[in-house]
């Protein structure tokens, strides 16, 4: 019972914070300053974090009432429409707990970080209100035990994401990006919604536990359809190809938002959903293949784009895409636990990296172009070191978090026979290391390209920003060690075992124990090796001034390689232009779609309405024509009458003769 209350507190406090701040924050800020306005939302999130930690600890510890399979609490009957009954309720198990940890921790840190980051913005209250709304939505998403409630949360995170991306509403690009994010997400949501309908129509319930328990009753095509439709939603939220286009644009939002939503939490929702629905996917192997394929394709696609981007946040955004691709690949190959492991690890280190980038941007006065940075490592040391830690982690250098999770994914892919997935993943690992250190090189090392007027003003961020960086660096370093060890019986496996056990058993690919030796060892060596190669290549081209080791950047060599031949030229252009997806979408939806809409409107006015008006005009025309008969001359009238008489006589004769 106390846990029930705690569980309730977790999402409710942010909601209350949102409601209060949305209604009164403006006045409060005007009267008592921005700290007063942000105190409540931050406090709400902190308390929520505490509660979540307690709950998570209990759930992971399998304390009563959670046990192995988690604990459900019902709230109220949301929709009572005949057979269609939706009970709003929460369910907490190990998977939920893992997500709770990531969401509340990063969420809280981002809130704190934002105090400093948003200290110059007049809309602080609004920002915190939105953040709280997001926290509520995300927590609802992970807690909900009904697919429709999940869908609610799904859309609500979309809404908060929309609000936060478009936070600087005066910026046209921000407004466009927010709209794009929402709409692209909705594309995925359509699939998800249809999936939910199919679930209901097939099983008559939407309760997650019931559905997962009874999914086996259905026939194969239906399950596959459900799985693919649900994955459709997941792909939208987690920005998988071809719905990945919104995420890079979403970087128009304030950087804490990017860290929280577009790196650490919301974009993981898709991964969470698929993991949550693992029995469905477990029964639909063909859908799993699709998931794996899309995931790994996104991974390499995004990585290839990240190669050439110059906006620091965009590089990170593509990196996020790429890592999410990894996670889906993991889900697809049946590496469920590894996917969640990577989710958590990525949440922390990517959150860290984004906050770092925010700190950098802050330092160089809202400049995001890496070509106008360089040599910052001395000026903003805390940021620099934490970024370095994050980069090493994402590159998969042991013993940082990324190493454990990523290597586990690759290994599982290899061992489960998805060799292509492994091969691509392997390449992407190297690419990841390369573009991350390209980022490091351009930003922190090498000569400074900071605009001269800003140069003297570059400064380290205030403690409210740096403290979260340091805090986040801790799990980035130690998470892997804690959760990923000991090999063969790691903590994360122990935690999540009940969640995935049945699916794994059914799929025939039990998650093999990971060990340091044999094939596993070889794979570890290989991936660490490729990561190192990636780092070295980046080092070679983009210069390093680390611990006295100096190496000048060589942009001319980059250009030379890019222009080397048609193939490289094409690849370079493709990377630079993000494989022209924006152009394609622009063509399809703005130009062609716009034409269609305009044509429809024309049709509406000219044909549909034209018919209506035409009938009116016809009546008028007939009337005007017929009134000509009225000549005003009485003999004409008489003639008409006489004609009428003759016609009448004729008619009667015909009628009578017909008798």
């Amino acid at each position, binding site marked *: 019972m106390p846990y029930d209350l705690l569980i309730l507190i977790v999402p409710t406090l942010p909601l209350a914070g949102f409601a209060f701040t949305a209604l009164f924050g403006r006045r409060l800020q005007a009267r008592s300053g921005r700290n007063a306005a942000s105190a409540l939302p931050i406090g709400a999130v902190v308390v929520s974090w505490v509660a979540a930690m307690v709950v998570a600890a209990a759930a992971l510890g399998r304390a009563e009432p959670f046990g192995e399979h988690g604990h459900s609490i019902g709230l109220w009957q949301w929709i009572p429409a005949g057979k269609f009954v939706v009970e709003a309720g929460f369910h907490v198990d190990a998977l939920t707990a893992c997500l709770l940890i990531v969401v509340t921790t990063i969420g809280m840190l981002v809130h704190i970080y934002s105090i400093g980051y948003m200290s110059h913005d007049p809309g602080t209250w609004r920002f915190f209100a939105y953040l709280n709304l997001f926290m509520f939505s995300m927590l609802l998403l992970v807690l909900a035990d009904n697919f429709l409630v999940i869908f609610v949360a799904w859309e609500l995170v979309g809404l908060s994401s929309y609000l936060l991306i478009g936070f600087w509403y005066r910026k046209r690009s921000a407004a466009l990006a927010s709209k794009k994010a929402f709409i692209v997400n909705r594309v995925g949501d359509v699939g998800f919604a249809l999936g939910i309908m199919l679930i209901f129509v097939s099983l008559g319930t939407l309760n997650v536990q019931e559905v997962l328990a009874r999914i086996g009753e259905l026939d194969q095509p239906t399950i596959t359809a459900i799985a693919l439709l649900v994955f459709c939603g997941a792909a939208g939220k987690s920005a998988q190809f071809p719905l990945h286009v919104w995420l890079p644009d979403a970087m128009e939002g304030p950087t804490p938002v990017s860290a929280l939503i577009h790196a650490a939490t919301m974009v993981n929702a898709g991964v969470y959903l698929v993991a949550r629905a693992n029995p469905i996917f477990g029964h639909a192997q063909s859908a799993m293949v699709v998931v794996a394929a899309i995931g790994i394709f996104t991974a390499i696609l995004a990585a290839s784009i990240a190669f050439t981007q110059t906006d620091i946040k965009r590089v990170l955004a593509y990196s996020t895409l790429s890592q999410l691709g990894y996670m889906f690949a993991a889900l697809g190959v049946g590496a469920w636990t590894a996917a969640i492991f990577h989710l958590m690890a990525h949440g922390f280190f990517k959150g860290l990296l984004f906050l770092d980038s925010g700190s950098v941007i802050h330092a160089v006065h809202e400049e995001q172009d890496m070509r106008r940075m360089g040599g910052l490592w001395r000026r903003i040391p805390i940021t620099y070191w934490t970024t370095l830690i994050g980069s090493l982690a994402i590159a998969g250098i042991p013993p940082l978090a990324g190493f454990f999770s990523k290597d586990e994914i690759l290994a599982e892919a290899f061992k489960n026979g998805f060799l292509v997935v492994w091969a691509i993943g392997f390449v992407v690992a190297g690419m990841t290391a390369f573009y991350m250190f390209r980022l490091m090189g351009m930003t922190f090392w090498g000569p400074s390209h900071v605009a001269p007027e800003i140069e003297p003003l570059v400064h380290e961020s205030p403690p409210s920003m740096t403290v979260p960086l340091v805090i986040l660096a801790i799990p980035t370093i130690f998470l892997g060690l804690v959760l990923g060890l000991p090999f063969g019986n790691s903590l994360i496996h122990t935690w999540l075992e009940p969640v995935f056990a049945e699916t794994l058993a059914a799929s025939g690919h039990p998650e093999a124990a990971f060990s340091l030796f044999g094939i596993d060892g070889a794979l570890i060596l290989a991936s660490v090796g490729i990561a190192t190669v990636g780092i070295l290549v980046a080092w070679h081209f983009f210069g390093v001034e680390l611990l006295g080791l100096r190496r000048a950047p060589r942009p001319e060599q980059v250009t030379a390689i890019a222009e080397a031949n048609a193939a490289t030229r094409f690849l370079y252009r493709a990377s630079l232009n993000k494989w022209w997806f924006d152009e394609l979408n622009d063509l399809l939806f703005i130009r062609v779609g716009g034409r269609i809409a305009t044509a429809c409107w024309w049709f509406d006015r000219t044909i549909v309405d034209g018919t209506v008006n035409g009938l009116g005009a016809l009546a008028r025309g007939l009337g005007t024509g017929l009134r000509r008969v009225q000549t005003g*001359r009485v*003999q*004409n009238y008489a*003639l008409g009458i*006489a*004609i009428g*008489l*003759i016609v009448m*006589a*004729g008619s009667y*004769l015909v009628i009578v003769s017909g008798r």
Partner: protein
Amino acid sequence: MAIPDTIPFIGLSWNDLLFLAFAALLLGSGLLVVVMRDIIRCGLAMIVCFGALAGIYVILGAPLIAGAQVLIYIGAISVLVLFAIMLTQTKAAPVRLVFQTQAVPAAILAVILALILVLVIGATDWGAAAERLQVGTAELARILFRDFVLPFEVVSVLLLAAVIGGIYLAKRELDQGEATDRG
């Protein structure tokens, strides 16, 4: 000298001859009424026409009607019409002023109507007696005042109404002048 029952050579009875003569006169003068230019002559032709009709009524054995025809039509209506003609115009009008532009279609229509009527009359069994019948005046009066009292009274009301209204309309007002509300 006895007049033969039938006209020699032609075989018509005298009555028939009379009928034909009156019929010719009737139609001829009728036509003149509608085709002559001078409207006064038209009026005179109308009197002839009415007279011819009275003759036919006599042949038909309805002398009372013939009398009424002479008295009312020739005595009253025609005179009225002639007065009206005098009042409204003095000289004959040229053809284009006499006839409508639609005179030709009018003629065609009239002919069609006539054809239809003639054919219909010929095709219809009117349930008539072969010989025409004579109606005595006394009998007529009896019927008039037995079965047709109401119509008889109504006619008087009708004439009264027509006269009152007619007088009002035709009466010349002191303050002459155009006044119109344009509808």
